């Protein structure tokens, strides 16, 4: 089994431009240091109809109320500002930016526990002996020789579908065929409950696939996972 860079087709080249936008890095860094409430704010504001900050401050009094600690309120302001910048890119661009931000956030959280022997990489394919390579790369990988990990990242639970689940489960089972224990998981920037509702109806095999939803994103950076 080995990892390989994904082919750079036209779509990948366009998307790479979005991934490289400083706004993506800034939002990813802020969200890595955010509370779940701030992440909920980001999900709402990035996908909102209104882009004036005052509206969102009123919707989230637990983040912006007068009784909120100034340091926490200031951080929430940074999250709000980045989220509204994403929203202001327009409806067409939003979805690409949001996806890139979830990937960036995932990579940053994983990097907390990754080392030189387990680098975190992006847009990688996994090749197995005697198995035709998957077309779609994995969004984020942790390339440990002992226990590799592959993650697919989604903005919302609706992105969980049979293709995604089958690809992840295939990777896990092919790795097992080579006597490798590979962690496969889907990272969803959405409420756990909506993900579970989605998965409950799925007939695709996902018993060996992990789910990291908005409420438990920090577990990505915890050792022993």
């Amino acid at each position: 089994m080995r990892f390989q860079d994904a082919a750079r087709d036209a779509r990948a080249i366009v998307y790479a431009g979005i991934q490289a936008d400083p706004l993506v890095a800034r939002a990813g860094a802020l969200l890595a240091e955010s509370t779940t409430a701030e992440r909920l704010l980001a999900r709402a504001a990035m996908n909102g109809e209104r882009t004036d900050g005052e509206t969102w401050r009123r919707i989230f009094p637990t983040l912006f109320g007068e009784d909120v600690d100034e340091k926490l309120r200031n951080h929430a302001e940074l999250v709000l500002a980045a989220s509204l910048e994403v929203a202001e890119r327009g409806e067409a661009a939003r979805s690409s930016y949001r996806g890139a931000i979830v990937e960036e956030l995932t990579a940053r959280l994983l990097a907390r526990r990754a080392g030189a022997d387990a680098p975190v990489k992006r847009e990688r394919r996994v090749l197995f002996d005697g198995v035709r390579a998957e077309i779609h790369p994995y969004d984020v990988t942790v390339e440990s020789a002992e226990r590799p990990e592959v993650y697919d990242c989604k903005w919302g639970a609706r992105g969980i579908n049979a293709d995604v689940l089958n690809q992840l489960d295939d990777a896990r089972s092919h790795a097992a065929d080579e006597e490798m224990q590979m962690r496969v998981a889907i990272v969803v920037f959405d409420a756990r409950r909506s993900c579970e509702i989605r998965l409950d109806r799925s007939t695709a095999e996902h018993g060996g696939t992990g789910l990291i939803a908005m409420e438990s994103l920090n577990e990505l950076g915890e050792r022993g996972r």
Partner: protein
Amino acid sequence: MVPREGAGRYARRVNDRLGATRRAVAAHRDLGELAETIEDEWQYINDLVDAYALGLESLAEAGPRKLSQAQADAVDEAIAEIGLITDPHKAIDWLSTFPHVIGLALGGSVDGAGPSSASGSDGPEPDDDSPFRLLLGRGR
């Protein structure tokens, strides 16, 4: 945007937890009707609406009957926000976001009732800094 003066008058009239949760449930149901126009997602949409209706209704019992002005304004602004949505795809996204926004504003969890409740799953505990944990008194 919720008109400031009007919101104040309205909030004084129905500035109670039960009224706020009823308004939120109704707004969520309307959002579900918009989302339903994406026929391929009909089942998922109805599962979300049903599950979160129970969660939203449970907020009626999740704290003091009287809401603060900030809480009442938050609920009405969130309802106003989803009332502006015309794209059914965006409506699907908000079917899971809106209940948690309301839960945060009203100081309760919308995960504790109905099927697929996270509390009864094998999933991990919420992050230590999760507002849901904070609201349950288990965090900092």
